[in-house]
């Protein structure tokens, strides 16, 4: 009983979209099958390939030296990000200030630190003593009040903090500036008309609104920073990667140790991802669009999209 167009028109008034047959998705089933085959392959390799050395991975995963290396990595991330955010806010405020000298100075800083590789900056700070044997506090061409030997001051740890933090400041400055500029100028005017001081307007009106635009990219910066700290292994600072390297240089268990490193980085970045989603929801108060919930990735049909 083939239905003709004529029949559909005749029956038109009794039909209801509620009872409509759903579209079939044969390609989805086919692609799911392909993915399953690849996944099975991957599982087989993980289980049967002895080069992974899962027993070695498990043994080293919670070894004291590795955990201490992880601690250095986390500490570096936190300190470098704090320096980066504080510096970034200062630079961003300078970049949009009315003072042309401040604008130019901040622009120059950002140009330099964004224009050279982080790795080069790290090595540069590590070798600072070759450029400046002593660091002096005083008046140019005048008296020196205090002087310190660069080699004793700039330890690998300080070189790492300076290299990562000053670099991050340049990137954060652009993020913060973008956030500040995204707030409607009428907001500042409303604050001014109420007799509020500029510092208060910035703190209570502009920054809270700019945060919606600053937080998501800053979360990405933190996650990038966790991984960027691995660069400090080139200046012999015993972070997670350097600790693992010094172990496999001794035991030649290169792949298992690198897997240990990857598992820890994944664990840390996963936690950060959850934290970021909660912070984003907080700063979205009063906004039209709610930030996606962390669990949204588990949904088969995305929320808010016509399925």
């Amino acid at each position, binding site marked *: 009983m083939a239905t003709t167009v004529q029949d559909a028109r005749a029956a038109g008034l009794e039909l209801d979209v509620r009872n409509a047959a759903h579209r079939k998705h044969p390609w989805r089933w086919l692609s799911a099958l392909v993915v399953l085959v690849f996944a099975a392959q991957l599982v087989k390799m993980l289980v049967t390939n002895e080069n992974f050395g899962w027993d070695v991975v498990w043994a080293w995963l919670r070894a004291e030296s590795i955990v201490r290396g992880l601690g250095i990595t986390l500490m570096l991330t936190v300190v470098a990000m704090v320096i980066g955010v504080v510096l970034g806010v200062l630079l961003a405020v300078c970049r949009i200030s009315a003072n042309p000298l401040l604008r130019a100075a901040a622009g120059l800083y950002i140009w330099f630190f964004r224009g050279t590789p982080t790795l080069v900056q790290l090595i540069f700070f590590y070798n600072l003593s070759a450029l400046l044997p002593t660091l002096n506090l005083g008046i140019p061409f005048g008296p020196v009040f205090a002087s310190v030997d660069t080699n004793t001051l700039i330890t690998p740890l300080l070189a790492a903090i300076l290299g990562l933090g000053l670099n991050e400041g340049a990137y954060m400055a652009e993020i913060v500036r973008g956030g500040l500029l995204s707030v*409607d100028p*009428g*907001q500042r*005017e*409303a604050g*001014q*008309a*109420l*007799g*509020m*001081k*500029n510092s*208060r307007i910035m703190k*209570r*009106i502009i920054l*809270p*609104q700019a945060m919606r635009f600053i937080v998501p990219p800053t979360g990405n910066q933190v996650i990038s920073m966790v991984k960027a700290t691995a660069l400090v292994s080139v200046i012999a600072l015993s972070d997670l990667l350097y600790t693992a390297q010094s172990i496999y240089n001794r035991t030649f268990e290169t792949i298992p140790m690198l897997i240990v490193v990857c598992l820890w980085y994944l664990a840390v970045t996963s936690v950060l991802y959850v934290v970021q989603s909660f912070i984003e929801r907080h700063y979205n*108060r*009063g*906004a*039209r669009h709610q930030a996606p919930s962390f669990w949204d990735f588990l949904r088969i049909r995305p929320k808010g999209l016509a399925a």
Partner: protein
Amino acid sequence: MSTAVLQARGVRKSFGHTEVLSGIDLDVTPGETVVVLGPSGSGKSTFLRCINLLESLDAGRITVDGRDVGYDVRNGRLHELSPNEIARRRRDIGMVFQQFNLFPHMTALENIVEAPIAVLGEGRREATARAVELLAEVGLAGREKAYPRQLSGGQQQRVAIARALAMRPKLMLFDEPTSALDPELVGEVLATMKRLASAGLTMVVVTHEISFAREAADRVVFMDAGQVVEQGTPEQVIDNPQHERTRAFLSRFL
């Protein structure tokens, strides 16, 4: 003279090579409602923004309650004030914007109490009690916890009026307060403004609502091309305009 809340003398302002204000003189006495009419680009909004120094003046002088907003008089000369001192002098001048400019991350109540607490140093309890009263006064009792985007345009503008009133201003400036509203929401905002006018608030209102000018204004000022063309009672200016430019402008509303 010294009884005037607002005194403007020879106010000039240019943006680039375009002169927007070409010598404005205006006095507003306590309790008076002055409605400024004029075609778009006549400089009326710029003049209003000069009063609380959202725009700086190029020449002339504006005093509010006998003091310059941006300057101190010392030894017979005007001296520029610091941004914080200017902020202090803006307290007494309320302003209502065309686009409302409510703080979107704060509730209606938080919008209203922010400045009294931060600027006037009022206690939170006292400021909150007064904010609740003011919301009721503009017909929004019970909407304390609403965020601006949950309110209609007319409701947002009435919250903005309450926010300005919370500072107990000596002078209120309205910059085209109904121009961004859907036509059916204009009435509620104008009704609120009429109540304030009859309650004796000193107001300068820039608007295109001729009916509001007729019903609420003590004086109507007609501006064109950066100058005050004529002023007088609503009957004089709206019903019996003396100048050709005023007649041409008003004819579009008949």
